């Protein structure tokens, strides 16, 4: 049920030509996604989605739209070629899912490799009942260091692109 909602919202967000409306639909999309993560047991992911989608994405989108333009121009070309490309890709991917294990199968390859080890040993080895946190920070700490660096680099990149630091320096001098 939620999945159908999510799909419909995604399609509508692409369909509409008014960018403000698209941004709003993206907000709804994020809300539905958060509910979906809760249904699929991914509580931490839902938490992140909630924190990010509730204020941050909408505000950023609105500011970007304010700085550029509000309305999208109608397309010049007919979009048959991209549509065909998307459909062919989707068809191939669906063909690929036929071999995949059934949804929620406890014997699926993803479930039997390292996850049981984490689930059994995480609390004893780290003293942290939330397995997601312990895997995030301890077992895959190196990974997370990389992710933090990516976020840091993105922040710096935006500041440099939009000239935040240069403006500041100029106000200091005057």
């Amino acid at each position, binding site marked *: 049920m939620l999945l159908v909602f999510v799909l419909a919202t*995604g399609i509508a967000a692409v369909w509409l030509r008014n*960018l403000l409306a698209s941004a709003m639909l993206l907000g709804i999309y994020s809300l539905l996604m958060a509910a979906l993560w809760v249904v699929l*047991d991914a509580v931490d992911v839902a938490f*992140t989605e909630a924190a990010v989608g509730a204020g941050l994405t909408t505000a950023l989108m609105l500011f970007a739209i304010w700085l550029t333009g509000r309305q999208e121009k109608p397309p*010049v070309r007919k979009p048959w070629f991209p549509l065909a490309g998307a459909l062919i890709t*989707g068809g191939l*991917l669906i063909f690929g899912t036929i071999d995949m294990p059934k949804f929620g199968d406890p014997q699926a390859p993803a479930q039997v490799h390292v996850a049981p080890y984490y689930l059994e040993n995480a609390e004893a080895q780290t003293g942290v009942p939330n397995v*997601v946190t312990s*895997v995030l920070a301890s077992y895959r700490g190196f990974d997370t260091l990389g992710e933090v660096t990516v976020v840091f680099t993105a922040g710096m990149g935006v500041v440099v692109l939009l000239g935040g630091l240069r403006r500041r320096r100029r106000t200091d001098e005057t």
Partner: protein
Amino acid sequence: MDVLGHFNYWVAIALAMVGLYAVTARGHLIKKLIGLSLFQTSVFLLFISIGKVSGGTAPIIAEGFTVYSNPLTHVLILTAIVVSVATLAVGLALTVAIKRTYGTEEDDEIEALDRAEDEQ
């Protein structure tokens, strides 16, 4: 081969198709970014669907539960969401910079301006 067993994967793929279409067919750069974030969420959905174990609960160890969903995919996606917002912000900043330089944010017009500059 049953429909319900693969429905989640199919929705993820449909979302990926929508995102791909938006990225390739739409000329407006912000619309392309929206398509990009749809594509990203489709990947998230695929991962979380793989990680779900039927009958399991959230992977926070508590008394009275024995079956938990796979925490590994949750970890990967959790960081990916924050990173996706950061990349979205970089994309928006690039769009703003392009708007400032070219005066437009439509794909075709930017290309036309580039071509005109080359010919000069």
